[in-house]
């Protein structure tokens, strides 16, 4: 815990939470504008479900890039300040350091997910959506998004730590964002390979065209559990591979 606190302490002047909030402001603003336009065109689309579905598809583009930026900043400060040797002489195991950085990145991204949920609630109430706030759906949305974030953070952290040149980590984030955006167009077999597709893959709402009309269907929780379990396993594998690889690298 002490190590995580120290990581967050090192970040105190980097305004990461503020940066995430500002970045999300653009995304949320964009998503809500699109949502309002779609409601004005088709009043049947008013409701909580389209709002959640819209934001989760936007997340496919934004959150991989935001994760890449956050993780890169957390890891790059050590590369930039040449502080790896210093840290390791403080008799901290590298695995522990890796975990601390992972946890602090996850906390920052969890903040992003919580902001989104709050924004959805605020937008829904202000726009006078008739139904009551679907807390259970929002919690499922929060868990799905946070889980996908954590897998992507594991991947980004591996690249950001193993390769000093952060251009590669950010390019991976960009490619991830692109794949997250087009994920729904890919065949389901191909889509499942890419971790970035799970923002929509784990979203409690799915969209489908029935007789040329967009329908929003609430997914059954039991259908998502195996997918989430598989994703967690993949995340653990990526995390361990990254941690072991980075621990064995020469400083």
């Amino acid at each position, binding site marked *: 815990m002490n190590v995580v606190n120290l990581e967050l302490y090192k970040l105190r002047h980097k305004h990461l939470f503020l940066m995430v909030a500002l970045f999300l402001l653009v995304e949320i603003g964009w998503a809500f504008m699109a949502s309002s336009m779609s409601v004005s065109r088709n009043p049947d689309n008013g409701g909580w479900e389209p709002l959640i579905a819209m934001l989760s598809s936007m997340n496919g*583009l934004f959150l991989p*890039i935001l994760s890449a*930026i956050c993780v*890169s900043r957390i890891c790059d400060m050590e590369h*930039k300040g040449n502080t790896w040797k210093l840290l390791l002489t403080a008799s901290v195991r590298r695995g522990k350091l890796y975990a601390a950085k992972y946890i602090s990145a996850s906390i920052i991204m969890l903040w992003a997910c919580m902001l989104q949920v709050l924004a959805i609630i605020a937008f829904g109430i202000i726009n006078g959506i008739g139904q009551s706030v679907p807390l259970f759906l929002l919690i499922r949305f929060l868990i799905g998004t946070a889980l996908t974030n954590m897998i992507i953070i594991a991947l980004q952290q591996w690249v950001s730590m193993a390769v000093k040149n952060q251009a590669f980590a*950010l390019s991976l984030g960009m490619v991830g964002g692109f794949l997250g955006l087009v994920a729904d167009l890919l065949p389901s077999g191909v889509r499942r390979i890419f971790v970035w597709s799970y923002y929509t893959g784990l979203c409690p709402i799915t969209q489908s065209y029935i007789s040329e009309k967009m329908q929003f269907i609430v997914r059954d929780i039991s259908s998502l559990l195996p997918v989430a379990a598989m994703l967690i396993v993949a995340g653990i594998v990526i995390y361990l591979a990254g941690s072991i690889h980075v621990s064995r690298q020469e400083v």
Partner: protein
Amino acid sequence: MLRHCISAEWMKLRHSYIWIILMILPVISVLIGSANFYMNQGVLTKEWYSLWSQVGLFYGEFFFPVLIAICCAYMWRLEHHNKNWNMIMTAPVSTNSIFLSKLIVVGILMIFVQIIFFILYFLGGKLAGITGGLPGELLGWLLRGWIAALTIGALQLALSMRIRSFAAPIGIGLCAVFIGLGMYVIHLGLFFPHSLLTTGMGVLSQTSLSSGENLLFIIMNLLYIVVISTGAIYRMRKSDVVA
């Protein structure tokens, strides 16, 4: 002096493997765009124009601006390391040359990216079985895309010079992409660097610009480049560096 600075910038780029990134992003956008075109040929009937709308959309709208941002952040990365700011500011070269050499090198790299993109677009079209001739506007799209890339490059260089973090200017650049998209939608595409790229490359609308619009496009780009570069150079000259 400028020539020496440019060759120094080239030397700094050696062993950076930045060319891998410059290649990967266009390849991915053309691959997915071409695949989408190939699968939807029933709807996308305007051959090269339809293919451009598919491959150009993601490339011109998202990948290219971010690619420029990554490239610019990389150009300043070395300066923010190992107290190199002190070294570069005490070198017997003017601040103009330092900034302009970086802008010129980014410009050269962007020519390289545009050429690769053109080759991939051509190959993608041929593989998808397009038989007609290439559109006449193609050279204009690529050239205007490059000019707008220089404008975005100047902006990103100024940001990356000022902000020590590698990733933060790229995040700002991405937000600017969306602001640019908004500006384009409300028909102010010729007044914001990122929407200049959208307009210039014809990614959302393939109708060619009128000569008046072309002139305004070039004037706006020049204006942005001059204003941003002057501001950045002035700042470099006047404010103290933090090594």
